[in-house]
């Protein structure tokens, strides 16, 4: 259902959208049922139609059963939602696919994203790494593992079209993964208030075919964008540890 509003562009986007759909159906049912009953009572029991009210404690079974029955039904719905939500959570946050094609390092800065690509040798942490600002290039249908850090304050790496989000915490390296499934260019907004420039802290992810990606690699080799005032490519958190 969410895909009507925003594209699903990763391997787990549909699963997350599914969770949202189930909550919408079950929650929506209860919402509309409760609102209907509420409006129905207001209409049926208004003073002109119902001049005298009943005197009910609400403890007797005759009236209580409506609360009880719906009580248990709500719990049942909660369990269904829990199962679907936990499975999606586990898939995205508690497990990384066995086969990872490439790794990338991401560093959040006030106020830009630093993306470190492995470069032609395919390995992260080697001299041929490509270090860009606000630009992330990936290949469609390949699985990426990312190592997320922050150079200063809390940021949050998110790609809405992937249904991906993870806060970047200074002093930690947090891992995650994604597999893009639709080619295109998508927003990578920062999702945690990080100061004056939070509103302009947006990167772009370029999901490319293998050919396009090779073309980009050729033109980009040796390219390292400098972020004034910050060192690039190093673990930002090691800077303060001396």
């Amino acid at each position, binding site marked *: 259902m*969410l895909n009507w509003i925003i594209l699903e562009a990763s391997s787990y986007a549909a699963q997350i959208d599914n969770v949202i759909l189930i909550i919408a159906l079950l929650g929506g049912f209860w919402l509309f049922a409760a609102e209907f009953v509420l409006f129905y009572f207001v209409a049926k*029991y208004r003073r002109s139609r119902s001049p005298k009210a009943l005197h009910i404690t609400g403890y007797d079974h005759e009236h209580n059963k409506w609360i009880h029955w719906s009580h248990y039904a709500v719990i049942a719905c909660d369990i269904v939602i829990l199962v679907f939500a936990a499975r999606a959570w586990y898939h995205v946050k508690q497990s990384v696919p066995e086969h990872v094609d490439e790794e990338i390092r991401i560093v959040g800065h006030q106020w830009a994203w630093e993306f470190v690509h492995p470069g032609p040798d395919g390995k992260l942490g080697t001299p041929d790494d490509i270090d860009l600002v606000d630009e992330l290039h990936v290949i469609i249908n390949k699985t990426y593992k990312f190592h997320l850090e922050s150079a200063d304050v*809390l940021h949050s790496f998110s790609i809405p079209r992937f249904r991906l989000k993870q806060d970047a915490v200074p*002093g930690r390296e947090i891992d995650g993964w994604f597999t893009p499934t639709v080619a295109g260019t998508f927003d990578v907004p920062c999702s945690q208030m990080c100061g004056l420039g939070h509103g302009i802290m947006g990167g772009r992810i370029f999901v490319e075919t293998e050919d396009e990606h090779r073309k980009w690699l050729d033109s980009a080799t040796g390219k390292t964008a400098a972020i004034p005032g910050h060192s690039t490519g190093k673990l930002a958190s090691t800077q303060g540890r001396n």
Partner: protein
Amino acid sequence: MTTHVAADHAHSEGDHGHHELSFIQKYVFSTDHKVIGLQYFMTGVLMGVLGALASYVFRMQMAFPGHAVPGFGLVTPQIYNQMVTNHGTIMIFWFAMPVLIAAFGNYLIPLMIGCDDMVFPRLNRLSYQIFLFSALLLIASFFVPNGGFGGAWTSYPPLASNPIYNQTPYGAPMWLAAVALEFVAFLLGGINFITTLMNARAPGMKMYDIPMVVWMIVIASILFMASVGPLVAGAAMLFLDQTLGTGFFDPARGGDPLLWEHLFWFFGHPEVYVVLLPAMGIVAEVLTVFARKKLFAYRTVLWTAVATGVLSFFVWAHHQFVAGIDPRMANIFTVTTLLISVPITEMSFVYIGTLYGASIQLSTPMLFAIAFIVEFLIGGVTGIFLGASGADIYFHDTYFVLAHFHYTFVPIAVIAVFAGVYYWFPKMFGRYMNDTWGRVHFWGTAIPFNGIFLPLFYTGMAGDHRRTFNHLNFPDLARGDLNFLRELSTVSLLVMLAFQVIFFVNFFYSMFRGKKAPANPWNANTFEWVAASPPPHGNFVTLPHCYRGPYEYSVPGHSSDFWPQNEPAPKT
């Protein structure tokens, strides 16, 4: 049970002499709970107006980015951050809490339990003075170099702890100190509410005879007491980081930003129930009176409120699912969060059940009370999307969250408050508010409110993130349909704000020129309607005795459709 004459607390000044009290003594430095309640109300509403003005400024920026806001000017990123930060902070701490708890609590509790004042009247006065000072301190933070704090009401370090990151070296600690002082004021107030309920009830008033609004305010006070400690600890650490350059939250020096998040949200989640419970209490009073019907399953309402309060201590990390906590923890908090939806759902169903077989008069207070349920149900259900970890990955920090919590907070802090104001106004001022204008105000509030926040569910689902001063900076969000919805939201806000003028005019005009109201204009049962309208200093000519529960309406065989708590049973 021994009894003795003379209250166990000091009387306020002027009690013993026969001299007339000056204006200053009567209204500025009073220890009378009614005056203090109204002081909290006026100050809280004034702060609410400031918070609303902030929302006017930033919503105009959201809808028409880059255009000067009429009456304000251009909104820079710094101003934008300060506006959103202080809007949230003011609305929660200096509007919702003071009005719902301190104003209604102070005014109503001694009246509704049938005594003459709070147990500690001078402590009560002190709490208001500290509260007022905290409000002034917050306002002052806007006028220092670099202006007020702009790091969001959640104030996460290292942004909040290091002036190099937040650029507000004076504003940030002032903001924090103002919040801390507000906490102190509410602790002092809460002491009065709890102690007064325990020790000063009218004879005969047993546990289940206490009106629900009194219970709810006291339970909320207990909840506040129990949850605020860890945040004060965190605030002390944050303040030291801000002012003395310590490293409690600096990872380079062994600190941890996530420590703040846990301490904050451990309080932050119970806090939402601290404001919800009094609102539900007010709605219970209004519903029963205008439905002429007992509260459905009083004991269930009471114990689910307690259960909600207890459970609220176990859900906090659902605000931190993607914050970098251990992913395994997320599942536990999803379970507890879904669990807490159960007592709340039960309370909602029970309130709807109160309307079954009722005889409903759609007075202005009743319209607001019913609207509370209608709107809060939406808020509650949309919370499930956020409490379920798998779905929250997407929704966290989007406008969906914002729409959800405004669908809970606005019913709590605005709709329920209006229900209470229209209902108790005759008691407070001895005059009715104008009912026709009240209804105009109602529709002008309830409908535009939906116009503001329903579109924001959609824009949130489309990817609009919070605290973003111009969505057009993000190419995927620079869409015509989203622009339209942002404008719709802002225009609805303008309409809703305009209608509030009607309320203020009605309120102040009726205070002096409204139609005179008797002691019990609504034919209600609870003790406050026994006192004169308005009640004198000391409240009752003769302190009442309690003979029954508060909701004995439409009792079969009884001569009228209400049976006040202080009326003795007829001799057979």
